[in-house]
């Protein structure tokens, strides 16, 4: 059975294992090749799951697996919200 890790981008645990196998062992690299963590949830659901998989596969502790860079805004906000006011 396939185990879904990133629901925004439809990424399964098998996809993550394949990426690790290809030599992508940091969360930033995995994000770049698979897009996981880049969807509307902004990584809240999937990043902890992916961290666990990477830690197990690379023999590192979860704390040692470098987190992907967090990008603002911290939750989705509409463009019109920013378009309105002056600088």
């Amino acid at each position, binding site marked *: 059975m396939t185990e879904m890790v990133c629901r925004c981008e439809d990424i399964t645990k098998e996809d993550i294992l394949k990426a690790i196998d290809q030599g992508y062992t940091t969360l930033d690299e995995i994000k770049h090749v698979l897009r996981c963590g880049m969807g509307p949830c902004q990584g809240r659901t999937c990043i902890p799951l992916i961290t666990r998989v990477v830690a197990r596969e690379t023999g590192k502790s979860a704390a040692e697996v470098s987190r992907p860079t967090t990008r*603002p*805004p911290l939750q989705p906000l509409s463009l*019109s919200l920013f378009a309105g006011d002056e600088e």
Partner: protein
Amino acid sequence: MREKAEAVIIGGGVTGCGTAYSLAKKGLTDVVVLERGGLCTGASGRCGGGIRQQFTTEANIALAMESVRLFEQLSEELDTDIEYEQGGYLIIAYEDDVDQFRKNVRLQNSLGLHSRFITPAEAQEIVPLLNTDPIAGATFCQTDGHANPFRVVHGYARKAQEMGVEINKFTNVTDIVAVDGHIQAVRTDKGTVKTDTVVNAAGAHSRDIAAMVGVDLPNKPYRHEILVTEPLEHVLDPMVISFKTGIYFSQQKHGSIIGGIGDPEEPSSYNLSGSLRFLKRMARTMVELVPAFGHLNVLRQWAGLYDVTPDAQPILGWTEGVDRFCQANGYSGHGFMVAPKVTELVAELIVDGKPSMPIDDLTLSRFEGEITGEAYVVG
């Protein structure tokens, strides 16, 4: 890591990985790539992916046109979908742009590029959501477009590795050893590689690399910010840009709108943080052009560095004073789109001693004389 190589490439972005691929394709596989982060850590992983041929200097037009020819077959060549789409570039013309834009189109046409000047109504046919009130027209070239930079870089890297190139990630170049103008070795935090040939593809950090052998590059780093929205149904074919406001945006295959805007007040720096000022300027300018986008949610914003030269054209080729030290940097904000041709020319220079297209106008030594620059720098 290999102890020696026929050529060492510094930088694992589109230039470094593309050069590795082009060298291997020409039979030179005894090549080592050194990248201090992961692949795409630099501008290549932060860019808009836009591919445009509408430039104002002959050198840039030629490089971009040849690159498009190569992009068209790249998915097949690299066995990976680079998400290449030729939806065109729509360059917004405001009233005082019109005369110059008509001249630019004439130059582009004389070089075989099918760009054209169009009316606001024609522009709206291409982008139905466009607010044409503030615009006087546009130029359009259908064969411009965009691709996914991650796919391109990883595609180049994988193919190069399959052919025998060694790519070392998380390996920081700390020094280049040269004696009497001849390179001997490249030092890193993971060991030393002996070589007599080095390609400087370190993007905005190329100046630091050149300084290791006493070469002074005129390149300066400038922060450029960019954002991505939530994905939406397909509503936008071309990349829309304006040189006046510095804005550019396009819709990725995946559905999100990705775009940025330059800031004339941005000082030269290595700053990579995102700013609220950018978000506001971007939102205001984009919503003026496409009011419907006001409803879109912004998912992420980030920044990257433009590696800017005094004439906004890249620095390519050998370096006076240091034998077999090849520059491939200074792209001034449009290095992704010219990478296929540039990396092919660099590989020809290294393997055959002569590129198939003259690059004399693009070598470092050009800055000793008078400079005529590229006027179309977006952002």
